[in-house]
């Protein structure tokens, strides 16, 4: 809950329900958007833009997982599989049927969303660990189907996805793509924060806190879970579709159980808010950049460990980071951020 500074009062319902309330926050928002859409494209090189594109795509997927885990309290280990469904549907539509990205992406998102409902059906009657293992099982089944899809999915060799175009304008460089994914990521953040303020969003939070109690209060628990799984897979589908068209070729190796786990880890590190998701995604992606550059350096100091040392080291480091966060800061980076903010809101005049 955002605490307003002293002297800011709501005098109408419009003010009370506004997403951005104070002039200060408006200016910060405009500043952020200016940095994202003007400063970074002007200053950043292709490598940085590539990293940012990946961050934006992962952010969309992570927001989807946040709806199911953070807001509805159902643990899904199959998020990467839903991303794969989105990516492959989009790539198949564009390669085999020649549809443009603007038709293929919504269709891919919808397919992933509907499949999410199907997979969630058994998961809806059950709770806790059962949901986690059901989605895990779904992951293996979906990935097997994709791997054995024959000519439709091209199995192990990978499927190509066409370029994104509007008329004669082609999104072929990192910079052009950056505008597309960053806008979509910003939209996703906006949409998710608004979903949480609607009736269904509040129902999700009630189901998370106690589904029996929520049921007694007249919330349709089944429908709430279905909608949250649908939305979550929808986000995953969009993210997968973007990934497919960004990279131009997708293989099953890009959607492993590990990828689901890393998105989960981002949520743990970030914390259970929208800001938390953003922080978690950025934190993990930057950490992996650090390992990417620092790893070979450390690896050259211990040559006995050989070539796979970097990826193994990354795995160990990420695992340890998650455990440390669980133990020492279970509410994540966003909680730390809130503490810092509220400290400086009063500083240096405690009153």
């Amino acid at each position, binding site marked *: 809950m955002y605490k307003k500074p002293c002297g800011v009062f709501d005098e109408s319902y419009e003010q009370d329900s506004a997403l951005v309330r104070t002039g200060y926050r408006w200016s910060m928002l405009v500043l952020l958007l200016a940095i994202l859409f003007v400063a970074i494209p002007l200053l950043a090189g292709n490598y940085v833009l590539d990293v940012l594109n990946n961050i934006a795509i992962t952010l969309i997927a992570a927001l989807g997982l946040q709806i199911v*885990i953070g807001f509805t*309290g159902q*643990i899904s280990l199959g998020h990467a599989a839903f991303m794969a469904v989105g990516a492959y549907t989009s790539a198949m539509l564009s390669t085999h049927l020649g549809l443009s990205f603007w038709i293929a992406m919504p269709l891919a998102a919808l397919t992933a969303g509907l499949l999410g409902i199907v*997979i969630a*059906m*058994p998961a809806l*009657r*059950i709770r*806790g*660990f*059962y949901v*986690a*293992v*059901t989605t*895990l*099982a*779904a992951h*293996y*089944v979906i990935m*097997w189907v994709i*791997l*054995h899809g024959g000519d439709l999915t091209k199995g192990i060799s990978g499927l190509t996805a066409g370029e994104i175009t509007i008329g004669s304008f082609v999104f072929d460089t990192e910079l052009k793509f950056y505008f597309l994914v960053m806008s979509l990521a910003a939209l996703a953040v906006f949409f998710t924060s608004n979903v949480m303020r609607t009736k269904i969003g509040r129902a999700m939070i009630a189901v998370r806190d*106690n589904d*029996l*109690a929520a049921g*007694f209060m007249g919330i349709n628990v089944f429908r709430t879970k279905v909608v949250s799984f649908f939305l979550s897979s929808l986000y995953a589908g969009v993210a997968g579709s973007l990934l497919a068209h960004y990279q131009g070729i997708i293989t099953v190796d890009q959607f492993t159980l*590990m990828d689901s*786990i890393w998105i*989960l*880890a981002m949520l*743990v590190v970030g914390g259970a808010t929208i800001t938390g998701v953003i922080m978690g995604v950025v934190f993990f992606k930057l950490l992996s950049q650090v390992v990417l550059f620092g790893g070979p350096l450390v690896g050259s100091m211990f040559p006995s*460990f*050989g*070539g*796979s*040392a970097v*990826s*193994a*080291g*990354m*795995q*160990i480091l*990420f*695992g*340890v980071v*998650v*455990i440390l966060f*669980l*133990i020492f800061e*279970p509410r994540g980076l966003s909680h730390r951020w809130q503490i810092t903010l509220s400290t400086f809101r009063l500083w240096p005049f405690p009153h």
Partner: protein
Amino acid sequence: MVFFLQILVNGILTGFIYVLMALAIVIVYKSSSIFNFAHGSLVGLCTFFVWQMVVGWGMPLYVAFVLELVVIAALAFALQRLVLKPLTGQPLMAAIMATIALGEVFSGIVVLFWPGPGRVLPVWIELSVLKIGPITISSESLTNVVVCTLCFAIFLLFFQKTKLGLAMRGTAEDHTLAQSDGVKVDMIFVVSWFVAILVAAIGGVLMSSLYGVSYESLHSLGMKALAVVILGGMESILGALIGGLIIGVVESLGSGYIDPLVGGGFSEVAPYIVLLIILALRPYGLFGYQRIERV
């Protein structure tokens, strides 16, 4: 018909290893209500450590066995004290995430210290073939069945007859009550983790004696054990037994009849498909408790 029977027997034989693996997960879950997603990685880690001792360092078997016990005890103690105890009272998500993260750490360790392709354990039992009518059973898989049954029986006796077993069952019922009766719940958790990791090591070594030490197959063995546990119902040892045999048979039938049709790999996912179907029909697994809750 002979083919079918042979496949059925093979399935039951592998099923025994799943039963053992599932037992390890059930023990930890019952005592500490933590569902161990790190089991697959633990199986891999322990088996590679056994390989390191026996082949890498050339230790005699009994020394390796004692050292393995010491290492597993230390690992169980460290797990409980450093990771799981600080997480007491956290929501379900934290426990799941902690075991998943532990799994990543363990699998990272395996890749770091034993990179490259798989290893081969020495042959401990002379390979021979037992024939019952038209059905053949290799001596190795027969040994596996014997070892698994023995372990299973020992654990059942341990739970029923010893004081520690009683304390563990009490802890499984209610932590607070057990504690007020003088059970050191913390130590019980360590013991249950010790048993679980030991079982993981035994299962891993048995599996590797059949197929060689490879991290992927050991990890997928542990992951399938998760499916077995959920299939049988999380609190149920009987469920683990039946679930393990079902999964073993399903996998074997899948590899015998459907793999030739679709081009391989179906046996890997067949257990998960069965799991999805059974959970859709029976949400608490075959023998799990249907919890009645109060708000």
